[in-house]
């Protein structure tokens, strides 16, 4: 095994030639590489662990984890895995190089504009949900581990601390200290829980807090007792640092930073959904605070935290499955009372089975392809508002019967020329798990116009239930 410090540009490792050293980190070195044969379809990098003096369990185990986990992951939110080298000769991982810088330099520019914070948050939450769906909790979400493709998708890198629900956890028994990066570690991570995807949403909350205010919510503790403080003390509300922080943004950040994972967003998709529709975020007391809770409350919570054992959590796989986003497409005009009733009953059944589910009620406002659209009725009332009123009216019985709180329900009127296309696009953008919609009867209209539901069924990436009378 060549010590990574001795490697030089031009050296050959297995089937790859080293070109330039891109990065020298504490745990690993990154090299720009080219294969000896053939042209790769994407630029490649080689990650070589820095193993100090042969005995370095942290680096070795972290790299073992990464070698085990990376080949299992796919999609635009991770660097594509190419190959790996074993520890007997030279340990390395060759993967796709993500162009550009990590999010780390943006941290130095904080506070950032609120729109940028929301945009970063939404893209990272979307990416985290995709990882969680692949049974992975990252457990080291921080700006230096986040990159962006030129096409805009957030990419998570460095899986050395991650936990895959369907693979052995090599780190579980390895260390006696909590694992993670001090400022970002969730309370349950401090308590050695390694399988809760909501830990990543806490870390994202820390990041959004920092980007919004320029301050870390829990400082940068280096001791276990310092880390444990977050079990019983709240961060200062962002508005204490930056008074003009919009209440919705403070609501989102403080919800991510809840000590109890059950009080946070339950999935990255649910968080991304809120950040894409700030006007739909119901505001609670979290949004109001200008100063942290008093010391009496902290003392109470300190006692509670002292004896508290974290509850055994469902793993990433189960958790994500039980917190789906359901989307119901409501046709305010083309429907009939019978179809409305049946659609409502179908949605009710689905929402009853999964108490963690969120419901997005969507309606399309049809626009003309050419020419001016009428946005007001004869009396000058907004058609958009009228349609919103109509879908809220549709959902009212559901809201009452299931006692859905505001967090579980959102309303969206989309202006579009192609109804089916707009529905599918909304579902993809918001990581919807299941679309429920009615089918028009066997009318002359359907024969003439084609079926919207058939088009949605054909084009959607998620499950679709078509309700018929």
């Amino acid at each position, binding site marked *: 095994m060549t010590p990574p410090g001795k490697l030089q540009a031009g050296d050959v490792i297995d089937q790859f030639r080293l070109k330039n050293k891109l990065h020298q980190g504490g745990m690993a070195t990154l090299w720009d590489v080219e294969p000896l044969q053939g042209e790769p379809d994407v630029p490649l990098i080689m990650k070589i662990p820095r193993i100090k003096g042969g005995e370095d369990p942290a680096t*070795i185990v972290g790299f*073992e984890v990464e*070698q085990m986990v990376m*080949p299992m992951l796919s999609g635009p939110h991770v660097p594509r895995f190419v190959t790996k080298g074993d*520890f007997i000769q030279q340990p390395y991982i060759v993967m796709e190089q993500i162009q550009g810088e990590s999010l780390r330099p943006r941290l130095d520019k904080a506070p950032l504009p609120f729109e940028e914070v929301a945009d970063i948050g939404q893209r990272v939450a979307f990416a985290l949900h995709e990882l969680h769906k692949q049974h992975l909790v990252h457990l080291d979400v921080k700006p230096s581990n986040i990159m962006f493709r030129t096409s805009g998708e957030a990419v998570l890198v460095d899986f050395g601390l991650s936990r895959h629900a369907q*693979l*052995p*956890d*090599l780190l579980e*028994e390895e260390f006696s200290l909590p694992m993670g990066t001090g400022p970002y570690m969730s309370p349950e991570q401090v308590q050695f829980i390694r399988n809760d995807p909501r830990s990543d949403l806490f870390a994202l909350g820390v990041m959004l807090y920092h980007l919004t205010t320029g301050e870390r919510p829990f400082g940068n503790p280096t001791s276990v007792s310092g880390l444990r403080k977050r079990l019983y003390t709240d961060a200062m509300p962002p508005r204490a640092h930056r008074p003009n922080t919009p209440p919705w943004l403070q609501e989102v950040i403080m919800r991510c930073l809840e000590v109890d994972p059950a009080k946070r967003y339950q999935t990255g998709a649910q968080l991304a959904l809120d950040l894409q529709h700030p006007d739909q975020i119901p505001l609670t007391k979290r949004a109001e605070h200008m100063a942290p809770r008093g010391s009496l409350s902290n003392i109470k919570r300190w006692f509670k935290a002292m004896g508290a054992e974290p509850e055994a959590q469902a793993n990433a796989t189960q958790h994500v499955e039980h917190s789906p986003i359901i989307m119901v497409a409501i046709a305010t005009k083309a429907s009939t009372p019978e179809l409305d009733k049946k659609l409502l009953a179908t949605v009710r059944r689905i929402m009853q089975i999964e108490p963690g589910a969120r419901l997005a009620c969507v309606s399309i406002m049809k626009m003309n392809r050419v020419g001016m659209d009428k946005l007001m009725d004869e009396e000058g009332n907004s058609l958009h508002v009228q349609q919103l009123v109509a879908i809220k009216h549709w959902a009212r019985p559901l809201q009452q019967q299931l006692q859905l709180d505001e967090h579980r329900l959102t309303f969206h009127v989309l202006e579009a020329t192609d109804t089916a296309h707009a529905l599918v696009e909304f579902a993809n953008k918001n990581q919807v798990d299941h679309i429920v919609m009615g089918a028009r009867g066997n009318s002359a209209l359907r024969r003439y116009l084609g079926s919207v539901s058939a088009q949605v069924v054909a084009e959607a990436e998620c499950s679709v239930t078509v309700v018929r009378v």
Partner: protein
Amino acid sequence: MKLAILSDLHANRQATEAVWEHATQQGCDKTALLGDYVDYGADPVWVLDFVQQRMQEGAIALKGNHDDAIRHGSSHNMGEHVQESLNWTRQQLSAAHVAFIESLPLVAELDDCHFAHANLHAPSQWAYLDGRMEAVRSMQVTTHPFVFCGHMHQPCLYHLSAAGKSGEFSPVDGTPIILSPMRRWLAIPGSVGQPRDGNPAACYAVFDTGSKQLTFHRVPYDHERAAQRIIEAGLPLFLAQRLRDGR
């Protein structure tokens, strides 16, 4: 090399056939049979013929405690109920079958893999690997990084780091696991012929010795037919019931 690892077949023809078909579809080109071919089930002769056929094709086959008991009587840690099915099994087997069983070894090696029926640290004593402590003992007596044992009827994967930290994992059906050569691994594929984790589907595992990729599989089979065969043979009824329950 793609290795199919089958253990604890227990005279269950239907389960063995289903697993073999599955392993063939997976492209396995080598077989390791970890013992306990007979007892409990109604088709000991068919299963022993299957084992001999695989051996002719180059398979590794070990002796299990139930195979050993055919000649030497039941060992102390086998339940009393075993006696009845053991007696029945003896009546089915020819002298040639018994001689074949007697010829089987307790352990075997292949590349960087080491195999035993019950455990590797004392293979002739048939003690169960029922926890990390025991698994670590077996991982420490060999220089090979990969150990495979049967005897326990529930699938399980143990690992041991260079720093001496061990872990235990319940495998997920069909999910490949890349085994790091930096640590020791001990895999228990589970039982082909008598699964006991509440799932009646047969267990086995596939290990790709090149990519070090291990996959545990569950294969559903006609367990009603296997249970019916047990009843028809006049074997204890609960042996039929436990195939239906997977317990």
